[in-house]
């Protein structure tokens, strides 16, 4: 009977000869139509770049257009500043209060309205997607979280930015990595990254289920012998959604000089 079942399964799971190439063509078409996926940490090779040449060109044009628009807006703000305003006195004026950024989520490109947030005390700026997220300041931390609270069955979705004064990034990442090891079953090695921010990164997973918690911590130099920690929290199923959006927003994170 076991033999019979095995034979039956092989027979019933059979597929037409051309299926393999048909599915591969569909996969390739999907990959060719998208730029470097944000979740791939910008590690595409030259080969991949060639294959996405058309999308790269579109992205480049968009980036240039966006850059020019931001510059024009910033220049307008500069001209509107009262005479005698010190160059670095109000750094906020040098960043457009809002801008449109194209992000890619689950293979689909979309334009998002991003709002500037400047933390005057910690001296950094970030743009966040104001349609989907809100920024709350609590206990000296900036927390970007969903505008509408998620139903209880979903794990927390947030990105928290905090300054740690007088502790160097390499010490902070080591400490936080150790803390994660006590809480999560799968904690990856600390990596040095250049995207979406320049610094260190450690990632932890609570499991392999759709709703398993994912924590990604970045530690960035605050340029004053201290650090910024950025903690992303979401769940496995949301890696290509919230995870990709957080990644995109973090690209806009900038530490300001005094």
């Amino acid at each position, binding site marked *: 009977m076991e033999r019979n079942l*095995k034979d039956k399964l092989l027979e019933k*799971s059979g597929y037409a000869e051309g299926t393999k190439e048909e599915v591969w063509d*569909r996969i390739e078409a999907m990959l060719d139509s998208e730029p*470097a996926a944000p979740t791939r940490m910008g590690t*595409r090779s030259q080969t991949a770049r060639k294959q996405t040449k058309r999308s790269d060109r579109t992205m480049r044009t968009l980036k240039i257009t966006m850059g020019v628009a931001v510059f024009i807006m910033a220049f307008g703000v500069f001209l509107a500043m009262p005479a005698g305003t010190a160059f670095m006195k109000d750094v906020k004026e040098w960043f457009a209060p809002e801008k449109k950024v194209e992000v890619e989520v689950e293979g689909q490109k979309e334009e998002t309205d991003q709002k500037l947030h400047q933390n005057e005390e910690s001296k950094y700026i970030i743009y966040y997607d104001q349609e989907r997220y809100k920024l709350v300041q609590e206990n000296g931390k900036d927390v970007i979280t969903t505008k509408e609270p998620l139903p209880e069955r979903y794990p927390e979705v947030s990105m928290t930015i905090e300054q740690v004064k007088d502790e160097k990034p390499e010490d902070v990442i080591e400490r936080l990595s150790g803390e994660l090891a006590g809480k999560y079953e799968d904690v990856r090695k600390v990596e040095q990254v250049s995207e979406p921010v320049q610094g260190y990164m450690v990632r932890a997973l609570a499991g392999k289920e759709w709703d398993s918690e994912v924590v990604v911590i970045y530690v960035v130099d605050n340029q004053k012998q201290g650090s910024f920690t950025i903690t992303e929290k979401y769940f496995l199923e949301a890696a290509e959604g919230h995870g990709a959006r957080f990644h995109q927003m973090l690209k806009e994170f900038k530490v300001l000089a005094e």
Partner: protein
Amino acid sequence: MDNRLIERILQGDRNAFRSLYDEYFDYAMRTAKLVTKNGEWAKDAVQETFLRVYRNVWQYDGSKPFKPWFYCILLRECYRVMEREKKVVPFGEQLEKIAVEQKLPDVSVDVYEVLQTLDDLYRIPLILKYLHDYSEKEIADMLDVNVNTLKSRLLKGREKMKKGLGGERYGTES
């Protein structure tokens, strides 16, 4: 799975991705077809599985076996497609179906049809065991369950098969 291949995929090497596709397509397609019970849905599930693998390969932990990670994605995509097509029978209804479909001894009853009436809890481990000859340890890893739990599911699955086949003894107990 060779970690160097994964590393190349991480770098965006499409040829490396094709090698992985060649290695896993048959496995994925057959499993998806049995799980979704539909050839077109199986193609969709397999397509999405490979796309997710390509986009999320950074999440794969190279110190662990690749197959369970791949299988988790594949199964999730199968369910996603089935849900999309509104064909997922609620858990309760499945149990009900099994209960009312117990047949009297009948030589014409097909083992495959009986298997496909089982709840996924028993159906999936049996598919993996008899289609791919995976060991109980491998299947337990893929389904992320304890080996004893898996053994119990296989045992119960076989018992249900036996009942479905009209009392005929099915397989060996492990």
